[in-house]
């Protein structure tokens, strides 16, 4: 566990050593603020639900960009050869990278707190919705992170990792949406509905924190981290 923290510390700092992180955060904040605020004053509602409505889609592109370099760059640069010949377990490295990217995402989310602050100052919003919504973002984001991290391990090219991550996340999102469900035989509908990333987010976005949803997200994160550990341990690419 100590090793995982050491890796996490380094990876986290590595994010900020490059100008890309700052450009990123700036672009994210500009986008998110724009998307929310341009109808906010017109609508006149102290409601953050629209915010949590578009967030899963912003994350869809954002999170893979955060994770794409985590394995792919190390493979390409050859630093993986040093890292994986150190006396650390592969699972510790996977965890470390996950923790680092999670913290980075946390910071980005925290930087959007200007919006609930604004809404709170101007009106009387449903704080349950806001808290549930942010929690949902965190969990959904963490799921995307686990998927993106796994995708990064599949390639030595960051762009491929990025695209793969988006593809998998989109698939997981779509699986629970209505336009996919109508194509599925009736018996499977509840199953696929449960599997979809979006459905669980919606209930959280209403301020309802259901253990089924928490379990779902934790399972998704667990599954993809496990797949990641497996991919790295059984590496045949050198």
């Amino acid at each position: 566990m100590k090793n995982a923290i050491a890796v996490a510390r380094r990876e986290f700092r590595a994010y900020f050593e490059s100008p890309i992180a700052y450009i990123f955060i700036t672009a994210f904040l500009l986008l998110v603020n724009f998307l929310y605020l341009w109808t906010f004053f017109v609508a006149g509602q102290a409601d953050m639900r629209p915010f949590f409505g578009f967030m899963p889609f912003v994350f869809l592109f954002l999170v893979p960009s955060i994770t794409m370099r985590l394995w792919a760059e190390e493979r390409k640069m050859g630093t993986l050869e040093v890292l994986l010949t150190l006396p650390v377990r592969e699972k510790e490295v996977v965890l470390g990278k996950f923790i680092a990217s999670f913290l980075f995402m946390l910071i980005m989310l925290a930087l959007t707190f200007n919006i609930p602050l604004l809404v709170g100052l101007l009106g009387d919003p449903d704080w349950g919705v806001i808290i549930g919504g942010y929690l949902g973002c965190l969990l959904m984001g963490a799921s995307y992170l686990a998927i993106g991290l796994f995708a990064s391990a599949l390639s030595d090219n960051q762009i491929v990792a990025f695209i793969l991550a988006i593809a998998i996340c989109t698939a997981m999102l779509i699986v629970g949406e209505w336009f996919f469900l109508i194509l599925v035989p009736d018996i499977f509908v509840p199953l696929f509905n449960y599997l979809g990333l979006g459905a669980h987010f919606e209930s959280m976005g209403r301020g309802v924190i259901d253990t089924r949803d928490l379990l779902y997200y934790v399972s998704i994160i667990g599954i993809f981290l496990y797949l990641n550990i497996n991919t790295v341990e059984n590496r045949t690419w050198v």
Partner: protein
Amino acid sequence: MVNIENLTKYYGPTLAVDAVSFEVAKGEVVGFLGPNGAGKTTTMRIVTCYLKPTSGTVSVAGYDIRNDPLEVRKRIGYLPENCPLYPEMNVVDYLNYIAELRQVPSSERSRRVKEMIGITGLESVLWKDIGELSKGYRQRVGLAQSMVHDPDILIFDEPTSGLDPNQIVEIRQLIREIGREKTVILSTHILPEVSATCNRVLIINDAKMIASGTTDELINRAQGADVVTAGIKGPEEEVYQALREAAFAGEFRKIREEPENGGAWLTLEIESAGGDIREQLFRLVVEKNWSMRELKLEKMSLEEVFAKLTTS
């Protein structure tokens, strides 16, 4: 210290290492010599537990790489080819990071890192980002990280590749010093490097190990008979006849002929039938009243040994 038995590695259908077996004893400095693509890097990657073998056993300091990879990794310091480092970190942070992951206890870390910096001469670039360093300095950082946990065994893959002649001398000097106390395995295709730094050489070609021994042993083995180069002036046919009849001389051939006032200097390469034939050859020349101006015992060079062994 390091025992390798029947190590075989396939990359899909390609055979990269073919039933290689060898041992490295404690304190030895062993050189892996071989053309590019021979299997040196693959073998090292297996010993350091980066890759898993297809079959065969490898044990390091008594620990098997399959059963106790963590124990093996603790005892090895590894510098891969092209010295991969994190360009955005500075030298001190990087060495501290690696020291931490190499399980150097936090109370010892700064002392060890300072020690490494001293040994590899990195004082002047301590706080620079690794991406800004020249190749020579980066190689030194790579060496420093490999030794920071004071391992018993060091494995260097082409440690001087890409360095300029001055840097090469420095790194070799460093390796020689390290080699005094530690077990070192290094790979190279620069032959003088092997003679300069290693006690023993393993020649690998085409996935197989084809020769092993000290540089002298290899040269003697590959050369076969001793060869003498002699410059003799005398009637050509007589010289050849005498040499054919001489018991001490085996095959011979003419390399050069230089005519000179009423005769010609023949430069001949003469194989010995046994032992050093220079004295006998001299006596023959004197007896026949010829002239001699050159008498040299040829030793095959390591380059020639290498070429002979790897191109057949």
